[in-house]
């Protein structure tokens, strides 16, 4: 049943990386329970613009949970209270009238804040650039059916490949580690025959890049897995660790 809510929002406002930020309080009224969380922020922003105030800056794009652009810590949880759900797919029916909702950006050493809820996640791209691919040029690929890959392996690779690169795992990790993100790519490619030839080089350089970019180490807290909107399992971290060890044996 559609209902409408009134909420008190406490949103992190910060003009830029070099100035101090603070939580600012906004009241919103008549929010339909059918609206998504980001649509609730749209409504707030339209009102702010009409009042001549600066709207809340936040990243978002596809609004169907696949591009990985959106994300904020809502009441202490990355992407909010609903399991395996990105912020854009969280709907207001999961809140109650009168709730106080605290909204903060991803916080991690490797993510510099740009403005309000927007952060710079290019460190994740740097990890992929360090080796998260199969080194084949366009052209000259053999027929797609030349190498058979068991359905089981293919499905396991796909489980890892579902990562959307949103950075929630980093934001949720007490150490600010990017282990779940990195391992998802390592695990996807390491399991497929196409990824084998450079598996050692790949994992070594991606792991090195993680440290260079300022990400922390894994403490087996499992917060990443709990926060992941795509349900990526920490078994991929275990596989990456094995791959990493293997990379030392010639």
């Amino acid at each position: 049943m559609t209902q409408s809510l009134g909420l008190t929002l406490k949103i992190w406002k910060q003009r830029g990386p070099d100035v101090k930020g603070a939580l600012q309080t906004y009241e919103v009224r008549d929010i339909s329970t059918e609206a998504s969380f980001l649509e609730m922020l749209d409504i707030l922003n339209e009102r702010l613009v009409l009042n001549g105030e600066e709207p809340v800056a936040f990243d978002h794009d596809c609004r169907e949970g696949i591009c990985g652009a959106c994300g904020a810590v809502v009441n202490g949880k990355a992407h909010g209270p609903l399991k395996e759900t990105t912020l854009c797919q969280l709907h207001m029916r999961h809140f109650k009238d009168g709730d106080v909702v605290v909204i903060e950006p991803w916080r991690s050493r490797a993510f510099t804040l740009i403005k309000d809820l927007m952060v710079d996640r290019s460190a994740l791209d740097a990890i992929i650039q360090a080796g998260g691919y199969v080194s084949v040029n366009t052209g000259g690929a053999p027929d797609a059916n030349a190498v058979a890959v068991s359905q089981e392996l293919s499905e396991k690779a796909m489980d890892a490949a579902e990562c959307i690169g949103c950075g929630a795992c980093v934001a949720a990790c007490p150490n600010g580690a990017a282990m779940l993100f990195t391992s998802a790519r390592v695990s996807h490619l390491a399991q497929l025959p196409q990824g084998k030839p450079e598996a050692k080089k790949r994992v070594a350089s991606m792991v090195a890049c993680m440290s260079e970019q300022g990400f922390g180490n894994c403490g087996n807290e499992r917060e990443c897995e709990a926060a992941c909107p795509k349900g990526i399992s920490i078994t991929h971290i275990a596989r990456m660790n094995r791959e990493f060890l293997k990379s030392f044996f010639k």
Partner: protein
Amino acid sequence: MALDAKIPGGPLEEKWDRHCFDMKLVNPANKRKYTVIVLGTGLAGASASATLAELGYRVKTFCLQDSPRRAHSIAAQGGINAAKNYQNDGDSVHRLFYDTIKGGDFRAREANVYRLAQLSCNIIDQCVAQGVPFAREYGGLLANRSFGGAQVSRTFYARGQTGQQLLLGAYGALSRQVAAGGVTLFTRREMAELVVEEGRAAGVIVRNLVTGELERYAADAVVMATGGYGNVFYLSTNAMSCNVSAAMGAYRKGALFANPCFTQIHPTCIPVHGEWQSKLTLMSESLRNDGRVWVPKKAGDTRKPSDIPEGERDYYLENKYPAFGNLVPRDVASRNAKEQCDAGKGVGATGYAVYLDFRDAIVRDGRDVIQRKYGNLFAMYQRITDDDPYTLPMRIYPASHYAMGGLWVDYNLMSTVPGLFVLGEANFSDHGANRLGASALMQGLADGYFIIPYTLGGYLADRPYKAHTESSGAFNDAEEAVRQRIEGLLNARGRRTCDDFHRELGRIVWEHCGMARSNVGLDKALSRVEALQEAFRQDLAMVGTAKGVNQTLEKAMRVSDFISFSKVMIADARARQESCGSHYNLAFQTEDHEARRDDADFAHVSAWKYTGEDEAPEREVERLTFEHVKLSQRSYK
């Protein structure tokens, strides 16, 4: 100006190979002396960037998102077609070619479509080599499914996330070239102006979305892969940032806009709930394989669906199209849903929805079978609507999904501005008046991996190196024009938000230039858009400055371009006095209410030329000739 598509001579099957041989090559040692700008990092832009850098060109790649991996290609669900004939069911390059031409209602170029069908096989090989985890059979070979009413099984897929996996493959190849130094990546940049010098594309002015600064980049060629204009309708299945601004920038500098009235309205989307709604979510059309579409027979029936007895339900697709039933093509299904709702038989709170009911399928096959087939889609539907589709029929309604029209390009994918190439959804080239399911990904990757690497060389081989510099007068003028435009918008002190204007624009074009059009409606739409444009200039509410992050300004720049674009779209719909594919003018229908083409007068591409901001555009025509297919009337009875 006569539009010359530069289609090579020779038999259809040999045109591309011959052309590849006939084009001049750039010496490998000289490629590094050429700089190429690529705008956009979706399937077309990412694959083009990677491949051009592999060849040795200096590539500068731009995207407006924070990472190239977020381009909207990522959201494609269903799959990618290829004429591999792995299923031994009679597929061939010629059949894929024929299906695509016919599906487009005979409004696409034969030579382009044939090349697309040929290259489709290379794409799958390339993606598998990159480690794209396509679905596989138990024996380890690739699985296929049939899609969009095709009679053969030629669609390759990776769960419901094929676009994501293909894009991550291309993004991987792009990332590899970033690391190797072949590609310099510029994220959070949006093209603000195309720089044209001595009649050629010379570079771009981009706005840095973090600092707000205007930046200049010169190049020997510009490759635009900036997607489609579906967001002109405000509500669509596109991502929020999808826009027409880069294409309009090119249009204002002399690139022609082709067939802008061809827009795909997808029949199975989650309907609109309220005024605040920001986007519509697609539910894969595979659902129509088992779901039955119906509305109450009586207009204004507000009973719960379970209280409406069988005899009082109208399964209108099954009744009207007994042969195809619920599986009629996208344009037909969409139009019929609109007709029912316009007649007052729509369901749900707004009356703009029809039922897609799985009750009978669950009784027939059991809940488990249906759950295995559609479980993820049902979960997605429930997450958004809070309704359980196992017990309540889904409510669906059509939504804007894909732009078949786009910038006009010749066989080399070059626009009417020499040195400006246009790839993927941003061009108009291959889908005619209606795109078949699983063909968008195929076209984006064919353009980026396999066509532009050849045709760009053909253009550059005759060009001097570094012909353009960022300090030239053309760059000064272009930057000044952007600066003035931004100042104009920032000076606005009106009382209506940008979204409010965009919503009204969406309502106008949805009503009059959407699924069904009429001359009277189109004329009305044009005058309403002109009034809206005037109101936008007078009454826009704006905050912030040109410096730093200003998402309100970003939006205003895009919406102002959508308003300008909609006038070209309406003009195109008005000029095409026939119905074909997605363009359905009520005055031109068969006795069965299907699109009635006029091949004598309209078997052509309409390409529109900019003549001034408030001037009507001029139409140029490229005649289409069909030598290998016989033009026929589509029928689904």
